[in-house]
């Protein structure tokens, strides 16, 4: 018996979410390959440099917003259903959120791809931050709003299951797989207030022409109200895998249930009031609020540093149970031949490196040395592009068999895949960081200028371009391997009653030792809202007190 046989309805929903996620991953990944060759001037024959920005928008939206959201939905359907031992409460409701998200995604994707059709009036080359006054087709914003509403309903679905479960289990802690999913969604509800206000309150009416002028700083600020917490919305599901599943894949047990819960509580509290750290270089926001955002951001290092300890300690427990010895020699006893383990572990190592560049980003003044340079995508290709994406790919090797009832095929290719990703990302990301230090901007089709040359401190521009192009190519090969292994296993893997060992052992220090207050969702949710009010109410008031759309700028076509 595996998940498919116990919960066939939930398995079907999870599979549907994964299919959409993987299609988005395939198209978005292909766009990334085109960009890596175009930017570095290795090959510019796919599209012209004006169309580059539609490709870039597609890359960002499909990977950062669509792949992640759908994968997370599938993962949480699996985790909540399994740990509460109940199918979703009402399948019509469950399928309705899936279809709302899918319709929204399709609308948004069509407007982006329209930019690649010559003379198309349907365009959305506004990148995934869509700052006005650059204006996309209204369907771009409406589609995004639908994805957002769908994700809210998905969260409601899991809370519904939890409340029903709670009626039958009045005492005892929330099962950890459900706890982490619900706290991630609570954070999502807090931060998406900003996005909903921006998209529904400002951008949709403006793109439909109901108002002509818009104040650029207000939607930008609302975007970043959402825009940093969203990175934790991508990251926490990777933590979900690292805390709940990776210890077992390592041959051990989760070190501490209580630590896991504390980490998720801190993320709920601090993820949103940090948004100004994306606006250190903005006029219109006082230094005091920038400092508040920096202090909060630096405090957010704490849960990630705690995660480092708990997750590595869980892996070390596994390695020692497998016979590992010594201070560091035990690392060799970890299952470096298991694709799911290897992907998660390498993702964790890359996240440690990305953590460092994130600390630089967070430093209020040192941020200026790399603000809007290619250092920044270098950073988030380590975090969302590896910590999250590689973890998702790796755990698919373990989840998809449970959802399809079929064994994994091509295990050797599956094992090569995470190593290849690690290699490709090492090449690409180190070069992006170094190029950023030289001042090379991000989001640019042709980062070479007629009037001056960049002067890199480490390496040469040509060498960095080649590392980006070769790294991007290796990443594309790795992605192709992943899609091939998953598709082949899904369609033709050997059917089995237990296609994978899906048992998850209890933590070493279990929930019986965990303080009950950590499960108090109302308390933490209320505190999170208060912290957001402290951070945002005054600056937002300053921006809207002279009129919501004032000082107004006119829309510009994208």
């Amino acid at each position, binding site marked *: 018996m595996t998940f498919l046989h116990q919960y066939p309805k939930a398995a079907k929903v999870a599979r549907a979410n994964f299919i959409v996620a993987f299609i988005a991953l395939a198209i978005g990944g292909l766009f990334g390959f085109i960009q890596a060759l175009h930017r570095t001037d290795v090959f510019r024959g796919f599209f012209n440099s004006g169309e580059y920005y539609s490709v870039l928008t597609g890359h960002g939206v499909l990977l950062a917003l669509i792949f992640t959201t759908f994968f997370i939905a599938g993962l949480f359907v699996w985790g909540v259903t399994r740990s509460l031992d109940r199918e979703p409460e009402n399948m019509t409701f469950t399928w309705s959120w899936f279809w709302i998200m899918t319709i929204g995604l399709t609308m948004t994707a069509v407007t982006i791809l329209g930019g690649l059709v010559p003379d198309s009036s349907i365009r959305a080359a506004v990148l995934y931050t869509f700052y006005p006054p650059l204006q996309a087709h209204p369907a771009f914003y409406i589609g995004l709003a639908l994805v957002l509403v769908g994700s809210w309903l998905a969260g409601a679905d899991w809370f519904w299951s939890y409340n029903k479960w709670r009626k039958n289990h009045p005492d005892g802690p929330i099962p950890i797989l459900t706890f982490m999913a619900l706290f991630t969604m609570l954070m999502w509800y807090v931060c998406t207030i900003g996005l909903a206000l921006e998209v529904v309150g400002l951008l949709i009416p403006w793109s439909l022409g109901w108002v002509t002028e818009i104040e650029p700083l207000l939607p930008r600020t609302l975007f970043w109200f959402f825009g940093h917490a969203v990175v934790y919305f991508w990251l926490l599901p990777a933590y979900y895998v690292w805390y709940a599943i990776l210890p077992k894949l390592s041959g051990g047990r989760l070190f501490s249930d209580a630590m896991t819960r504390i980490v998720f509580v801190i993320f709920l509290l601090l993820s949103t009031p940090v948004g100004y750290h994306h606006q250190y270089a903005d006029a219109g926001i006082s230094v005091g609020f920038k400092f508040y955002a920096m202090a909060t951001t630096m405090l957010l*290092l704490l849960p990630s540093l705690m995660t480092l300890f708990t997750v590595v*300690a869980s892996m070390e427990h596994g390695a020692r149970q497998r016979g590992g010895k010594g201070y560091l020699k035990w690392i060799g006893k970890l299952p470096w031949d298991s694709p799911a383990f290897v992907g998660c572990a390498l993702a964790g190592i890359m996240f440690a490196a990305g953590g460092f560049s994130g600390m630089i980003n967070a*430093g209020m*003044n040192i941020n200026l040395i790399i603000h809007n*340079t290619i250092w920044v995508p270098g950073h988030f290709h380590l975090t969302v592009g590896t910590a999250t994406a590689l973890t998702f790919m790796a755990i698919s090797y373990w989840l998809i068999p449970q959802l399809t009832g079929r064994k994994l095929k091509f295990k050797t290719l599956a094992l090569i895949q995470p190593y290849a990703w690690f290699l490709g990302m090492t090449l690409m990301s180190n070069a992006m960081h170094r190029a950023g230090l030289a001042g090379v901007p991000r989001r640019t089709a042709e980062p070479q200028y007629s009037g001056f040359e960049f002067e890199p401190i480490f390496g040469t521009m040509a060498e960095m371009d080649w590392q980006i192009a070769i790294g991007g190519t290796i990443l594309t090969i790795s992605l192709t391997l992943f899609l091939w292994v998953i598709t082949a296993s899904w369609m033709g893997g050997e059917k089995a009653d237990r296609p994978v060992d899906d048992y998850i052992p209890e933590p070493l*220090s279990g929930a019986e030792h965990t303080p009950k207050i950590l499960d108090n969702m109302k308390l933490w949710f209320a505190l999170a809202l208060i912290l957001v009010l402290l951070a945002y109410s005054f600056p937002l008031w300053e921006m809207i007190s002279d009129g919501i759309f004032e000082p107004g700028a006119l829309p510009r076509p994208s």
Partner: protein
Amino acid sequence: MHIHKFERWWIRISYVLIAFFIATVVYGFVSMDLKVIGNYQTIDPQNLSETPFGTPGVREVTNGGVTEYEVYVQTIQFAFLPGTSSPITVPADTRITFYVTSPDVLHGFDVAGTNLNTMAIPGQVAKFTTIFPEVREYGIVCNEYCGPAHHIMEGKINVVPKSEFDKSNLVE
């Protein structure tokens, strides 16, 4: 609650690390003159012609008996005014205050390879002061996506010796 001794140590170390990061940022801000821009003033992006941005360029001002310069820059799709068609020429070792804004969309104003880096947001005036220590040319890059020809948007700053600074090109 069971927290291993080592993990307690690690959490304490983490707090110290966080405090250390914040302390270095504050130290740099206060003692090393490594500032960030703040809230200066809003402006109507559709009527820049009635403001100093209407005649963008370098102006001389006197501040406490010391000669300083102000530079008003408009960032437009896809040029810096001034900066693109003619370089922004300023003297070295002199306080220069930049005022940057945009009449159309968001742009970036990044003096490549330096710590001068700001957003140009329609409706907001970015104001910052600096001193160029070296005589040399710098490139200016728009580092915020601003439309289909974003990649051609560049400019130049020409820093000349204080003694050779030609005041005939000043505006006003």
